[in-house]
């Protein structure tokens, strides 16, 4: 299995340690272009872009290639971030995985479920990690930012944040940073019904690979990912503090609340169901984003003297 942290950071002694090369698919679009600038400004090593028809040109000082296989061959990059419109996502993602990309960050919103399932299957075959679709991406504060998140809410530290929502990930991380809880990684799994890396998988990757004091899980209504995670925390006896937030308590049933995945059918996907499962796993659920650091401080305080 490929290791997320080895892909993102590498090992001490690697010549590209903490400077892992990244390819941007759809680099010349308005969105892709803007966020390429932002990632470069953060220090992310963007080494190539791909836009069919524009191979050979440069954009933001980054060379553009016609195809992913050319870009991968030229740079040796194993990470790619996709900015193409949803209807072109499938072909862009297939091209990336077929070219040897091992970590694919899928930004587009509105990707059809069938296309997401197809990519999940292909990624399994290729032993690759897909994050998203409909994700803000991943940031390891101070080291690498692959995504569309602003840099300002994040600060280096030892708390991991996993989120189904973009702006809520920024909001919660901002609250944590202000309370002096920096982050070891902030991982946006995406707001769609099908996640390339589902919540439990993201959770396990982080607990095994990052230096953490605790994990904050930002969830929302829809599906049963939070319930499954709560059961998983119980089953695996995870003993570090976990604090959760769930958006959408006041949302009506059977209405899609912005995110394709945020919809309640009957009790399936309801906030009550998630909160009660979290209670069984001894995971407190914040009523509002600003409450997250307080609950975390409470949890951390219990185990040791600060």
């Amino acid at each position, binding site marked *: 299995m490929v290791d997320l942290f080895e892909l993102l950071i590498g090992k001490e002694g690697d010549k590209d340690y903490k400077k892992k090369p990244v390819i941007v698919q759809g680099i010349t679009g308005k969105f892709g272009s803007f966020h390429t600038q*932002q990632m470069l400004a953060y220090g992310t090593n963007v080494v190539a872009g791909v836009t069919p028809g524009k191979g050979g040109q440069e954009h933001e000082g980054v060379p553009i290639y016609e195809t992913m296989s050319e870009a991968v061959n030229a740079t040796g990059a194993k990470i790619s971030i996709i900015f193409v419109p*949803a*209807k072109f996502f499938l072909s862009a993602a297939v091209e990336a995985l077929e070219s040897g990309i091992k970590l694919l960050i899928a930004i587009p919103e*509105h*990707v*059809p*479920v*069938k296309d997401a*399932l*197809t990519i*999940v*299957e292909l990624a399994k075959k290729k032993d690759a990690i897909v994050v998203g679709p409909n994700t*803000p991406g991943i940031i390891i504060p101070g080291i690498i930012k692959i995504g569309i*998140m*602003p840099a*300002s*809410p994040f600060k280096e530290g030892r708390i991991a944040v996993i*989120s*189904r*929502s*973009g*702006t*809520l*990930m*920024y*909001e919660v991380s*901002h609250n944590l940073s202000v309370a002096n809880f920096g982050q070891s990684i902030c991982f946006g799994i995406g*707001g769609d*019904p*099908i996640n390339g890396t*589902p919540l439990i998988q993201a959770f396990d990757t982080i607990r095994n690979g990052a230096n953490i004091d605790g994990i904050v899980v*930002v969830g*929302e*209504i829809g*599906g*049963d*990912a939070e319930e*499954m995670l709560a059961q998983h925390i119980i089953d695996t006896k995870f003993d570090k503090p976990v604090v959760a*937030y769930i*958006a*959408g*308590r*006041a*949302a*009506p049933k*059977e*209405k*899609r*609340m*912005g*995110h*394709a*995945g*945020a919809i309640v059918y*009957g*009790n399936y996907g309801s906030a009550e169901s998630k909160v009660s499962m979290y209670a069984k796993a001894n995971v407190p659920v914040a*009523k*509002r*984003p*600003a409450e997250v650091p307080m609950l975390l401080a409470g949890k951390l305080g219990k185990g040791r003297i600060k």
Partner: protein
Amino acid sequence: MRLLEYQAKSLFAEYGIPIPKGLTSIDIGQGRKDAAVLGFPFVIKAQMAVGGRGKAGAIQKCQNADEFELKYPDIMQKVVKGEKTKAILLEKMADIKKELYLSLFLNRGKRCYTIIASGEGGVEIESVKNQIIHEVGLGNVDAKTAEEVGKQMGLKDKPLTQFIDILQKLAKITVEKEAELAEINPLAVLGDDSVVALDGKVIIDDNAMFRHDELRKFQEVSELEERAEKSGFSLVELDGNIAVVGNGAGLVMSTLDMLSDNGGKPACFLDVGGGATTETVYEALTLISKMKKVKGILVNLYGGIVKTTTVATAFLKAYDDKIIDLPVFARMSGAEADKSKEMLKGSRTKMFDTIEEAINAAVIEMNKNG
């Protein structure tokens, strides 16, 4: 997009799944003609995108013309769980021997399609007993799998043969039309051992609609929703008087929760998308101005990359253009917050440092006006 029963059944018919003879109308004039064609008795079924119609009296048997004149208008004006009747389906009654349950749905946790079937259908899925659950990857179902499921349900002979065919056709609909759910409940075995879909629920993946022009005719969007979609917003209309606007679905949901916790009544959920520009915020205010029930606007923007002044400009422009004349309670984190506060001084938009303060002010103001 959730299809109405008659729309789901038209898909079933197209794919060769047997359905009872039925006709759909939206007024009693057409209804009378349909009744004459079908002949009494039949069932009058409200077409609405919600479960529990039977219990609510939105599905009723009809024996003769006198009953028809009473029941048709009654069912036409039914409201169940907030959903109005959109049309009326008149359908021949079936001689039911046994009711089954069958569905194919997108299993989010397992990341594949899954069949749920039972020999004891006709009740809501939560109460369906002896569920047979079978994972089927991307949704295709071969004859062998279908036969296995049918046998587990206790079917044999003619009903089994028919069931195998129906399950495979339902799977074909799921795959070809990109449904998140295709459900037949009840699927009935009739007196002559034929198997017929007595109800149908199909939910199409909204994000796949760009590949399905043939399904557009089933799409029903309000003028506001259509405008919102064009701008890349998501809009859900609610019952209260405070419009809730923000960037990012999670953040807007979170704002809705906090507003409700504090006794406020949200009038809508409006997500303008991850970024926020002068144009998007201006368009959001324009959309809200079309909702009569709105008495105030609560704005929660996580700026980050966006400058608060770009958003303040949108508010000022909306007042100048007389798009809105409502109090706005805004929290926006991000660059140049002080400057934007200065810009908005004297306007009806109040800027707050935290969303909690903005919500308190909004709720107090709404209560003042009764």
